[in-house]
């Protein structure tokens, strides 16, 4: 092994990496937010068994979950303009990530809703609450709590997946790394540092999510 490690290019361009990491964080949180906004009504529609809607939701979920994200993002960035739908790279990345995580989160949230004891719904009905009130006030929070760990690991997985968006010239952390690598040729060093940065991001995300979980779900569980 006569390889000379050279981290100077990485250190000299570290501001680019920081900028890229910030974009990665923005993309991830944006997608988490939008994805959740997609997932909750889709999951509700699926569990409520509203026929045509549940069908559409199923098609959405199956298509997204059975095709690679890379192909989805190519499709959105390169193919949709042919249909008159045009996003800039970072927006396209956000759209693709949101649509992607939305599909996975729908299935997770659905499982959460289904885990809620029927008695809870009946108690709500017996008190005269309407369907959406039962969902909003009775089912929602406990359902999210049961699936919170699964949901947050999906979110972290999403953040890691976002490294692919540099393929459509989005300017995330991986893109910053690709740019530095392409001009300095210190490929291994660059990717090593980026990988460590992603690892720190995933630790940060999981710390943040568990802190949010602790403060949002303070109520004790039955013994």
């Amino acid at each position, binding site marked *: 092994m006569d390889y000379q490690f050279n981290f100077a290019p990485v250190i000299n361009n570290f501001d680019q990496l920081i900028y890229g990491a910030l974009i990665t964080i923005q993309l991830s949180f944006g997608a988490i937010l939008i994805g959740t906004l997609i997932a909750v009504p889709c999951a509700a529609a699926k569990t409520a068994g509203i026929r045509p809607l549940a069908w559409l939701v199923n098609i959405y979920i199956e298509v997204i979950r059975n095709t690679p994200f890379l192909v989805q993002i190519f499709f959105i960035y390169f193919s949709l303009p*042919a249909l008159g739908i045009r996003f800039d790279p970072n927006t396209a990345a956000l759209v693709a990530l949101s649509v992607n995580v939305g599909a996975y989160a729908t299935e997770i949230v659905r499982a959460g809703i289904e885990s809620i004891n029927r008695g809870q719904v009946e108690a709500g009905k017996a008190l005269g609450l309407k369907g959406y009130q039962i969902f909003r006030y009775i089912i929602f929070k406990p359902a999210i709590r049961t699936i919170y760990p699964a949901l947050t690991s999906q979110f972290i997985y999403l953040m890691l997946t976002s490294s692919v968006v540099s393929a459509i010239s989005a300017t995330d952390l991986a893109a910053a790394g690709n740019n530095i690598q392409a001009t300095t040729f210190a490929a291994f060093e660059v990717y090593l540092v980026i990988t460590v940065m992603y690892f720190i991001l*995933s630790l940060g995300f999981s710390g943040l999510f568990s802190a949010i979980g602790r403060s949002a779900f303070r109520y004790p569980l039955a013994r």
Partner: protein
Amino acid sequence: MFRTFGPNEFWYIVLAVQWTLLLSAVAFAGGALGGIAIALGRVSPVKPLRYGALAFIRVFQGTPLLMQLFLVFFGLNIFGVGINPWVAAAVALTLHASAYLGEIWRGCIEAVPSGQSEASWALGLGYRDRMTHIVLPQAAKISVAPTVGFLVQLIKGTSLASIIGFVELTRAGQIINNATFQPLTVFSLVAALYFILCWPLSLWARHLEGRFAVATAR
């Protein structure tokens, strides 16, 4: 040099499925070997093994597969193996699959009731016999559904090998797209091919899950 999208282009993309499948198969085979080692490490009575396996899982589940591919791709060079997308993709996907399968299978091993291990101890069976004859056969049964589910994730993961230049389904699509400039057709076809590969597996996994739920409910 520009071509129109014709039967040749169509078949070029369709035939690239074989490389996706081959890469998935290699990664799955490697991941199965690595995964069993990681899973056994995670439930091992030896502390350093437990922590080592845990660290492996944390690292490979905490960093992007794409970066793992790049690192292996450019890192092989440092160890004098040279850069080769085939080797890099196979190694990176194997490591990736080992981490995920290891974690899945650990769960399955732990799902075997502890009474089974106690009975083996009480009969005087050693670690090896207990694992090979009692615990693993039962864990294997539980693991089929989540393993098939992971296979879908792995097949999709092979698409990232296109970024380091490995010509599989996604890369074939890009190449044809670059020659024909018909992205809607090309990427619809690529997506459809992945869907055809993955969807039956997804359905099968869900079917197995359902059957297992029924079996354990009794």
